[in-house]
């Protein structure tokens, strides 16, 4: 099967091949979904927002200039921000990531093929990090997710979020400082160190 690059797939979609758009969805859904789930903390809402972002991307595809991925991720991030804003207007919806229901991201993390003890430790670690992430302001959370989980550079984050590099740096710094405080308070950093050492050996 021929593997097309993003620009070729975009061209095929513009030529009327809707299936080519679903190839783009398959390719980018994981990244889009992960940004949403980390931003929103709710698996189903994250899937809905990611899918709506893909539909919006399709709608505006003829106006795409430049690369598809950063453009798509900008749409995804905007979608997340809209949902967070509407949640703030209706505060009954919570951002609690530590619910013990099977759909929460924290519970999905446990199945990693590690031994039971290591898996439990990892699961707890990830649950605490997810909880800490929910504690920091939305704009800082977005930047730290893009940088530390999605691995984007400052410039990529600036392009994606429409803020300048100085703001990216300061938001990232504040986010990390707050996360550091929360992880230190939870006495989690020594466990991260142990986990890192175990992973490296």
């Amino acid at each position, binding site marked *: 099967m021929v593997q097309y690059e993003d620009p070729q797939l975009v*061209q*095929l979609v*513009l*030529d*009327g*091949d*809707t*299936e080519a*758009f*679903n190839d783009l*969805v*398959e390719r980018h*859904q*994981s990244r*889009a*979904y*992960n940004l949403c*789930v*980390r931003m929103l903390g709710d*698996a*189903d809402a*994250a*899937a809905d927002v*990611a*899918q709506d972002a*893909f*539909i*919006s991307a*399709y*709608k*505006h*595809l*003829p*106006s795409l200039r430049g690369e598809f991925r950063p453009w798509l991720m900008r749409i995804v991030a905007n979608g997340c921000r809209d949902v967070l804003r509407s949640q703030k207007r209706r505060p009954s919806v919570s951002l609690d990531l530590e619910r013990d229901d099977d759909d929460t991201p924290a519970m*999905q*993390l446990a199945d990693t093929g590690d031994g039971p003890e290591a898996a439990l430790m*990892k699961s707890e*670690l*990830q649950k605490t*990090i*997810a909880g800490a992430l929910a504690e920091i302001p939305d704009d800082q959370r977005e930047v730290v997710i893009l940088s*530390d*989980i999605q691995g984007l*550079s*400052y410039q990529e984050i600036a392009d994606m979020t429409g803020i300048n590099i100085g703001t990216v*740096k*300061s938001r*990232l*710094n504040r986010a*990390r*400082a707050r*996360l*550091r405080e929360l*992880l*230190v308070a939870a006495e989690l*950093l020594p466990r*991260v*160190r142990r*986990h*890192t050492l175990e992973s490296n050996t």
Partner: protein
Amino acid sequence: MKTKHTITTQDMEQLSALLDGELSPANAAKLRQRMQTDVALQEAYTELALTQEAMRTMPTLKPPRSLRIDSQRLHQARGWRWWLISPPGGQLFPTLGVAMSLCFCLLFGAVALQPAESPVLKGAVTSPAAEAAPTDETILIASDAVPLAGSPWAWLGAVAGAGVLGGTARWSWQIRGRKRATKQ
């Protein structure tokens, strides 16, 4: 000798940038030198690195369902930009557009080139009968016949027509090119 200073927000920002490899080589060397003598900086750097490591332990999650979108829903989502690149009726619509803008251009061009005092436009006045006894009606016809003849407005119309013609032709050509590329 090692010391422990209070860390400023600027220090933290620099440590964060150092961690990401986003600090300039000169600033990075300066900060590393400071870290060798400042315990607080070292501790903060280690904790930041571990915090980042903790974030990186977060695995990639699989969506609970496929995010694929059925083609009917995609067609419904098409906005006006889609209409521009893929007009209803395929090539017919831009072809009609080219023909109409050509007519528009020719009409206004002809009017623009026509002198305002042209005898053709004032045909009724030039006829012997009318010359002999010009009536109010013939004068009215002559002055109202083509009021834009030779005026800048007619030129503007002709230029606008040419612009629309060029734009529509280009649009039509783009659609043809795209269709040809798809067939290949």
